[in-house]
C-alpha cells in the first residue's frame, strides 16, 4: 500500500512540481496517472521508489517512510519501468541484463537463474537469451527492460509512458499484459497521456494538472468529466466525444468503451 500524505516537492532549480498531493494506492489496484507534460506525473511516481524525496509531507510504502530509506531498498517492492529502455541497457547479453537487478538485490544463484528464465519466458524473449540487447529492435528492447523489472517480482510495477512510439497492435499487447499482471495481484501504476489507451483499460484514473490532483475516480467518470479534463488539457476519448454530441437524444455521456457504445446505439436503433 502506498500512502501519499500532503506531499510537496520543489526541484533544486526552484520549480514547485508537486503542490499538496494526497492519495492512497491499495494493493492490487490498477491506476493510470494522466496529465499534460509538466503536470507533475513523473515527479510523483519518482517519490514512490525514493528517487525523489518530498520537501514537505511524507510517503509511506507498506508503512515504511521513504524519507530515510534508500532507493535500493524501496525498489525491491516498487519496480520502475522507464520510458526509454536505452537509458538502462548496458549488458552483453539479454540474460545478464535481466539478472542485473537480481544480483544487486542479493538473490541466490539458483533462484536468480530460475527468475531469469521465468521473466524471459513471460516476455517471449527466451530465444534472445544470449543475444546482445543492442541487436534487438525497439519493441524487443522495451520487452527486455520490462523483463528486467519483473524478474525480481516487485509488488508494485510503475510504468512511465509505456505507449510512446508504439503502434496499435503493440499497445493492445501491452494492455493485455498489464491487465494480466494486475489480475495476478500486482499493483500497477501507469503514467500516460494516451487517452484512448486508458479508455480501453478502464482503470482508476488520477488526473493531474500543475502539480495538483484535479480528479481521482474510476476511468468512466474521470474521462467523461469535460470540465476536469479541460483543466488538465486532456481531450476526451473519441467515443466520449461522440456521445457528448448526442446529448439531445437522451443518450448517456459517461461512455468510454466502444462495446458499451455499440450496446447503447444498437438498442436505440432497434427501438426505431
Amino acid at each position, binding site marked *: 500500500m502506498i500512502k501519499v500524505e500532503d506531499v510537496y516537492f520543489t526541484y533544486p532549480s526552484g520549480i514547485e512540481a508537486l503542490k499538496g498531493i494526497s492519495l492512497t494506492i491499495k494493493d492490487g489496484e490498477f491506476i493510470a496517472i494522466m496529465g499534460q507534460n509538466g503536470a507533475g506525473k513523473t515527479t510523483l511516481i519518482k517519490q514512490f521508489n525514493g528517487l525523489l524525496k518530498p520537501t514537505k509531507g511524507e510517503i509511506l510504502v507498506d508503512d515504511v517512510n521513504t524519507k530515510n530509506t534508500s532507493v535500493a531498498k524501496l525498489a525491491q517492492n516498487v519496480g520502475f519501468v522507464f520510458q526509454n529502455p536505452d537509458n538502462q541497457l548496458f549488458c552483453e547479453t539479454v540474460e545478464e541484463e535481466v539478472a542485473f537487478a537480481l544480483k544487486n538485490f542479493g538473490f541466490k544463484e539458483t533462484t536468480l537463474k530460475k527468475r531469469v528464465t521465468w521473466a524471459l519466458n513471460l516476455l517471449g524473449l527466451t530465444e534472445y537469451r544470449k543475444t546482445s540487447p543492442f541487436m534487438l*529492435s525497439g*519493441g524487443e528492447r522495451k520487452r527486455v527492460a520490462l523483463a528486467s523489472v519483473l524478474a525480481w517480482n516487485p509488488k508494485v510495477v510503475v510504468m512511465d509512458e509505456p505507449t510512446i*512510439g508504439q503502434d496499435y497492435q*503493440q499497445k493492445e499487447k501491452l494492455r493485455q499484459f498489464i491487465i494480466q499482471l494486475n489480475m495476478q495481484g500486482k499493483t500497477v501504476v501507469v503514467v500516460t497521456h494516451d487517452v484512448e489507451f486508458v479508455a480501453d483499460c478502464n482503470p482508476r484514473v488520477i488526473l493531474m494538472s500543475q502539480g495538483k490532483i484535479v480528479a481521482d475516480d474510476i476511468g468512466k467518470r474521470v474521462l467523461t468529466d469535460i470540465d476536469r479534463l479541460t483543466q488538465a488539457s486532456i481531450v476526451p476519448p*473519441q*467515443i466520449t466525444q*461522440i456521445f457528448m*454530441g448526442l446529448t439531445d437524444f437522451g443518450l448517456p455521456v459517461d461512455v468510454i468503451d*466502444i462495446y458499451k457504445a455499440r450496446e447503447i446505439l444498437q438498442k436505440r436503433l432497434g427501438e426505431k
Partner: protein
Amino acid sequence: MPVIEAKGLTYTYPNSTRPAIQEVSLKIEKGEFVILTGPSGCGKTTLCRCFNGLIPHFYQGELEGEIQVVGLNVADRPIHELALHVGLVFQNPENQLFALSVEKDVAFGLENLGVPREEMRKQVNWALETAGIYDLRERAPHELSGGQQQRVAIASIIAMRPDIMVLDEPTSFLDPFGAKKIFEVIDELNKSLGMTVILVEHRLDLAARHANHVIIMDEGKVVLDGEPRTVLGSQKARLLGVGIPKATRLYQILEEENGLSTDRTPVTSEEMIKLLQEVLKP
C-alpha cells in the same frame, strides 16, 4: 506530373538479409496531404529516407527500382540537391537541433546553401512567423518543450522552401496537446502554401482529419493506397492492426451489424456525430 513517383522500389540495408521495402510503387501529387502508416517495422521510415536521398546516399545498401522526386531521379542526385525540394522532420526533436539559438538553427540550411545574409534574414523571419515561434527566436533549444522544438525543426525546413515536407512520427514524444498543434501547423502549410505533406503517424485519431491520401504499409510492401475514408474504413486496415480512429471502428461495427450506411465513412468524431444525428432523428 506527380511530385513523387516510385516504381518497384526495393531496398536492403547493408548487413541485412531481408529487404526493408519491397516492390513499392506509388504516386503522390502536388499539394496532397498524405498519411503513411502501418505496423512497426513495415518500412515507412525506410521509405521516408528514400524521398530525400538519405537512401541510398547516406545509408548505402542496395536500392532497386526507381524513385523520382519533382522529376529528379533520387539515386542520381546528391542529398544536398534533393534537400532543396524535400525537407525531412525527424521523430526526436532534440537530435535535429544543433545551434545555440532557435533562429540560428532555422538559418542552418540556408547557411549551408550560401544564401546572402539579408535574404537569409528575411527567410528566417518568415519561417519563424509561419511556424508560430517568432518570439522564441533567441532562446536556446534546451529551454524549449518538445512541441516547441518540433516547431523549430519545421521552421528550419520550411525556411528552405521545399516543395515537399516529410515528417517521420513527429509527435511520438509529444503529449496530445503538443501533437494537435503540430498537425495544425502542418495543415496550414499544406492548405495555404500548397506544400505537399507526407506524414508518418500512428495517431490516426488526431491526424486523419487533415489527410486526403492514405498509404498503409505492411512488411515492406504497400498494401492499401487511396482515399482516407476508403482505406481507413476497410476491413483490411482493421485486420492489419492499424490504429484506425474509434469513430471509424464504431461505424464499421454498426454498418456490419445494423446496416448503417453512408457514402462518407466517418474518420472523426464530428463526422460520426453528424451521421448518428441523422440516423437517430425521430
